[in-house]
């Protein structure tokens, strides 16, 4: 997946700092937490069980919200906000594409990888915008779900949850791995966010639909089929879940748990997981038997639709899911790049809501809302509109980033460090271009000169830098006619015009207007290298000639305005584009300064 890897470390300090800045640093995250807690408190304060509605002074004609819907709405609202906060972790901007999306997609078919690569590329080109957008969109959806209790606003929140959930499920979870081998309920199949999507769809149902047990029955029936299918998958011979050990190695489940134990986390948690992995290795058959029986039993109970059976299944399911959440999924959100608490908590919320919908309280259908709610509809509408604004705050830059084919210059800054702003006269030179014409710096007056030093027989950096310069020229558009792209040979041996021409042919530079590849005698080149602070030397034993990667921006008056490292770093598609954008920005700046 060539596009989605920026090649930079997720912990790159420049990226992390920029991401923090975009999120108003730690303070903004803390503020979100406070708002989150306040919302929880406010919601808890306003909700009372329907049984007390009749005694608390209600306004007739406005039905109370069904318990099942309330559970879905607040439960998934809380989950979305929690996920949004997880998205604010420092490594998320630089690491989500390469360390979450790419590994998940790696075992999926080619078409899935291709699709995910498209999304991952957009992320890696604009990691700060994408990272921050994910935070705001998820916090916004969560807040919206919580504050919009009923009516079109509330149903729209459910629809928003469906749309964003599908985007995350496809690009972030590679369809929950359903097209990859090794699918298992234990590890989160069919993708945690698909459960958010189902919940969102249920929330989007008209409020009246919840007055009858039908949605509950349908939901439980669907869950029953799901659990039964997961039991079959878990029991299927040859999928590796039965043996605790296979070919003298830990079995599939043990390996999964051991892998999770390697996630950075408190020692007691990793010890707990390691202990369970050992247990699963020793008693693999028994462990899988328990899992299969439990899944099958829950499936049968949910399919039966009998409230008593469903209640037993719900409570035992909660215990079972929590055990899996701790012992197999390792809470899902640890390690600095966890995006959600995985599938067990949302699943608990979903089937619990199914039970509540199956058994509506006697008063629920008729009970009106509390008077306090009825008196404050404006507050909730405003709050819902605020939440929508938060979503748009994230969605707008993400949409802009997705269609922007050039990368954020922050990647180049992360690689080369901040450039140095200067205002010095550029040392003059007179050299020979690739067409054997003499070119002096003075002859380039009136144009911005983007200048670098390239070895024509270089095997790594120089061809990449040349491509970045070429791309800069293309990005400048009409302004390119005021910019000269100049490279000076940086090899004491292979420096004739035959080599500059060969290099130009190799890099497709022969047709680039305003491209000059300059060379000269060793003494001429030596003087230019010395004046511009470039150290060039031949190295022994088959190594490339060494030189530092440097670029300077010379304004039309012949003054150096910027000096920066042109080290292309990992030279991925996004970093190349990022360098070009940065150079283009400096060129425009120098044009303005003139």
């Amino acid at each position, binding site marked *: 997946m060539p596009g989605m890897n920026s090649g930079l470390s997720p912990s790159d300090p420049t990226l992390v700092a920029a991401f923090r800045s975009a999120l108003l640093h730690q303070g903004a995250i803390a503020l979100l937490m406070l708002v989150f807690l306040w919302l929880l408190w406010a919601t808890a304060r306003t909700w009372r069980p329907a049984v007390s509605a009749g005694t608390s002074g209600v306004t007739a004609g406005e039905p109370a919200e069904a318990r099942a819907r309330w559970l879905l709405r607040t439960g998934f609202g809380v989950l979305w906000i929690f996920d949004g906060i997880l998205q604010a972790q420092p490594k998320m901007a630089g690491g989500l594409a390469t360390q979450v999306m790419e590994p998940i997609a790696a075992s999926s078919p080619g078409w899935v990888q291709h699709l995910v690569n498209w999304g991952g590329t957009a992320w890696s080109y604009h990691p700060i915008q994408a990272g921050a957008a994910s935070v705001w969109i998820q916090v916004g959806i969560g807040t919206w779900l919580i504050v919009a209790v009923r009516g079109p606003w509330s149903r729209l929140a459910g629809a928003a949850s469906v749309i964003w959930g599908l985007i995350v499920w496809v690009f972030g979870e590679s369809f929950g791995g359903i097209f990859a081998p090794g699918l298992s309920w234990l590890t989160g199949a069919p993708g945690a966010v698909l459960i958010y999507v189902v919940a969102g769809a249920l929330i989007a149902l008209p409020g009246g639909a919840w007055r009858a047990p039908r949605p509950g029955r349908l939901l439980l029936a669907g869950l029953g089929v799901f659990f039964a299918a997961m039991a079959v998958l878990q029991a299927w011979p040859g999928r590796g879940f039965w043996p605790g050990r296979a070919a003298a190695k830990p079995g599939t489940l043990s390996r999964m748990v051991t892998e999770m134990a390697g996630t950075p986390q408190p020692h007691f948690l990793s010890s707990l997981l390691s202990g369970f992995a050992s247990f699963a290795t020793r008693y693999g058959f028994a462990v899988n038997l328990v899992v299969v029986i439990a899944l099958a039993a829950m499936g049968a109970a949910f399919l039966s639709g009998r409230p008593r059976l469903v209640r037993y299944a719900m409570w035992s399911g909660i215990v079972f899911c929590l055990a899996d959440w701790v012992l197999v999924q390792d809470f899902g959100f640890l390690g600095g790049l966890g995006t959600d608490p995985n599938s067990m908590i949302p699943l608990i919320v979903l089937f619990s809501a199914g039970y509540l919908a199956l058994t509506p309280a006697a008063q629920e259908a008729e009970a009106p809302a509390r008077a306090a709610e009825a008196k404050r509809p404006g507050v909730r509408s405003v709050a819902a509109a605020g939440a929508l604004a938060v979503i748009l705050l994230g969605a707008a830059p993400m949409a802009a980033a997705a269609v922007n084919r050039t990368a954020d210059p922050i990647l180049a800054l992360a690689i080369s460090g901040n450039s140095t702003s200067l205002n010095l006269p550029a040392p003059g030179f007179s050299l020979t271009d690739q067409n054997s014409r003499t070119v002096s710096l003075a002859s380039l007056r009136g144009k911005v000169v983007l200048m670098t030093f390239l070895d024509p*027989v*270089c*095997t*790594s950096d*120089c*061809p*990449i830098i040349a491509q970045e310069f070429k791309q800069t020229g293309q990005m400048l558009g009409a302004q390119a006619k005021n910019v000269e792209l100049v490279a000076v040979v940086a*090899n*004491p*041996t*292979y420096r*004739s015009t*035959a*080599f500059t021409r*060969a290099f130009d*042919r*190799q890099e497709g530079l022969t047709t680039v207007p305003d491209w000059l590849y300059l060379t000269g005698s060793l003494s001429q080149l030596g003087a230019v290298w010395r004046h511009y602070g470039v150290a060039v030397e*031949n*190295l*022994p*034993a*088959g*190594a*490339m*000639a*060494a030189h530092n990667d440097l670029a300077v921006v010379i304004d039309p008056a012949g003054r150096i305005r910027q000096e920066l490292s042109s080290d292309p770093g990992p030279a991925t598609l996004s970093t190349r584009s990022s360098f070009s954008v940065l150079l283009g920005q400096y060129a425009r700046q120098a044009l303005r300064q003139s």
Partner: protein
Amino acid sequence: MNRGPASRIRVGLALACAGLTAGCGTQAATVAVTRPPAVTASLSTSLTTAQGTWAIAVMGGSAASHDNFWQLFVRRANTGRWSLATPQGVADNGGLVAAGGNGSLVVGFRPSQELAYSPLATSTDAGLNWTPGLLDAALADTPGAIAVGPSGRTLALLQDGTIEAAPTADDAAAGRWVPLATLKALAASAPGRSCGLKGMTAVSFGPDQNPIAAGSCVRPGAAGVFTDAGGTWRSAGLTLPGNGPSMGTVRVLGLTAFPGGNAALLAVGTSLLAAWWDGTRWTVSAPVTADGVRALGFGPGGSAWLLLDSERAETIAGAAGSTWRALPPVPTGTAVLAPPGTGTLAPGTGGSYDALAVSGSRLTVWRLARGAWGKVQQITVPVQYGSSG
């Protein structure tokens, strides 16, 4: 791949030539054909020029290919010591190819990473100084990809099978090369069609100074060696006795010129043969059997050596009628053998072959004396790890 005995076809071909026949003089040979040849011509090789003996080997040892650097060593004439002579200025992770002639040695750098063409370097003082040259195309990945004639005319075999020529050494330095033939054109020519030419492996000059090209053919028993006579390519007439489907396809692993003739190393299945040409007739050696060839090279007078799997090494003198002679098991890590610098190996004598063993950035030179390898020199090469990363 079925390696069971049932699948093995051992065909013993008693190749007897009752006498010299026109265009073909062949010694007895037994060619074993079992499965597609496992032999590949590594770029590790050695060659001898008037300046001395040269050896090329890859060093570094890192798992990352861009931390493996190819090195050129020279044992200058009249000295027994080796020294590092790798030309500077270009990263050579892609490999080095060398050819001697006209009092000089030309070294070509194979492309690697972002570099798509092949810089050259020429030395006329046994590697003390180098002059840059340019081949604005990718040199083929075979040790016989460059040839230099006595007049300085230079041939280069490209990655795509094209043969280019530079009329003089100056032209080669300045990048003035002209196409001589393409693989497609050669394969479509009468001799190319006759042998089913599918790829080129080496270039050289014949005794008449005309270019020679060699490659691999799909027609069993047909050897693809061609000569260029004024723009028309003709078969050089190398045919292996016992020609037929049972013989297997012939691949020319190496080709070189020596005063008065050419020598070639051929692979037919798991059989390896040497062949010599004096301009009118070929002489083919008896075969030696091997599962794989790690390196090969030529010495003075058409002599040749093979470094085989399992630390086996075989040498053969250039004289007609000579036979393969096994050397004692070579020292661990041996990457290349270097023949005696002067004279022709007399059959049955040990000569003074050197075995150059590589371990990371250390080269150990072992010399064969009185039937045993003795360590004579060690060179620590200043490999610039990470410089091509």
